[in-house]
């Protein structure tokens, strides 16, 4: 179990992460979702013990994580910088990883390099953004670390490379189950891989749920404005638009068949809300979700 208690990260007067509590059972694939600047990287840095939280605690399997060598050896945090010297060759990066990582699989790393068509003799400085991300994927997956954190390790990768990345991530996880946390805002193409989703916004935790629970969690109700208004009263409204006398309202609500039948007989239409749309609705609000409940 990874436990975060009241974790805040501040840079001077800027608050990046504020008062986050999270219990993450190990052995699952998590998706960390949030808009740009929502605090994803700061939260992951604290979670990976790359940064001491300004306040609060991070514990991994009951141990205080920060500057704890036993926890650090089990943690692999891939950032977009790759944490390397620009003059290092890819080959050298893999060699260092082999020394640092107790579970390093050199054969798998070579296979992945081949898959992403990366020349190991290239220097880090000469890699494109997408190639840099791909090297991050190689370092992250071949390390087989019990806690693997990949921070937007898809930037610049084209659709083919991303698809290969997701396939390898899932395949390697099935063969070697471990805790994987992936931050992203490309929700739609990768949500099926996540067992749980964590959404943060403005440094605060918005939700932490089973991904499957979010599918079909929202509903869009469309119809004559008055009938819609009557029907949606008392539910959390995520968004709405009006055109002439027609009103469409998106709700954070899963209606049961009786509700649907009642609505349909009042002339209303219902539409499902996908995860991507739910995320957009939840994070495009000025107020956090809790405040609207």
């Amino acid at each position: 179990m990874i436990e975060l208690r009241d974790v805040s990260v501040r840079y001077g007067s800027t608050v990046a992460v504020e008062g986050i509590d999270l219990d993450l059972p190990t052995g699952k694939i998590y998706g960390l979702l949030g808009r740009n600047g929502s605090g994803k990287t700061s939260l992951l840095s604290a979670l990976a013990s790359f940064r001491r939280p300004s306040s609060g605690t991070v514990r991994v399997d009951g141990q205080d994580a920060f500057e704890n060598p036993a926890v650090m050896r089990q943690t692999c945090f891939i950032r977009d910088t790759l944490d390397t010297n620009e003059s290092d060759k890819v080959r050298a990066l893999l060699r260092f990883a082999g020394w640092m990582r107790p579970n390093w699989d050199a054969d798998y790393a070579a296979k992945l390099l081949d898959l992403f068509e990366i020349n190991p003799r290239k220097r880090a400085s000469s890699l494109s953004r997408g190639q840099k991300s791909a090297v991050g994927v190689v370092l992250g997956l071949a390390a087989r670390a019990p806690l693997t954190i990949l921070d937007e390790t898809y930037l610049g990768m084209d659709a083919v490379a991303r698809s290969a990345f997701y396939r390898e991530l899932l395949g390697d996880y099935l063969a070697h189950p471990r805790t994987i946390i992936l931050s992203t805002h490309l929700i739609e193409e990768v949500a099926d891989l996540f067992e749980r989703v964590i959404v943060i916004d403005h440094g605060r935790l918005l939700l932490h749920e089973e991904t499957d629970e979010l599918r079909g969690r929202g509903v869009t109700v469309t119809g004559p404005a008055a009938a819609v208004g009557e029907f949606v009263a008392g539910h959390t409204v995520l968004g709405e638009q009006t055109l002439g006398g027609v009103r469409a309202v998106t709700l954070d609500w899963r209606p049961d068949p009786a509700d649907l039948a009642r609505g349909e007989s009042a002339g209303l239409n219902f539409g499902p809300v996908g995860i991507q749309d739910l995320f957009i609705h939840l994070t495009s609000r000025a107020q956090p979700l809790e405040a609207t409940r």
Partner: protein
Amino acid sequence: MAFDDRSPIYLQIADGIKNDVLSGALKEDEQVMSTNQYAAFYRINPATAAKGFAQLVDEGVLYKKRGIGMFVSPAAREKLRRERRERFFTEVVDPMLAEAKRIGIEVDEIVRHLGGAR
């Protein structure tokens, strides 16, 4: 089978397997894919696949053989047919009649049309 993100995937998995049982694509006592095979094949999280299979075990569509895997229950097809037949009139026929009424199609007209499909 392709999943959409507009309803829980575990329910879509369960529905897909039920349809395979109903159509006879999956036979009685036939072994189904393991959750890991299923997850790798459809590129979904194995916990989601496991939840879909657990639902089918709960409903008696599949049964488990310890250490071997999951199989189609001998009575599953008959049971699913019975359930679907009961729901056919409330879920398929009644909404059609309601729509017909809205647009002024008489029941006789529908019966004549259906007679042509016989």
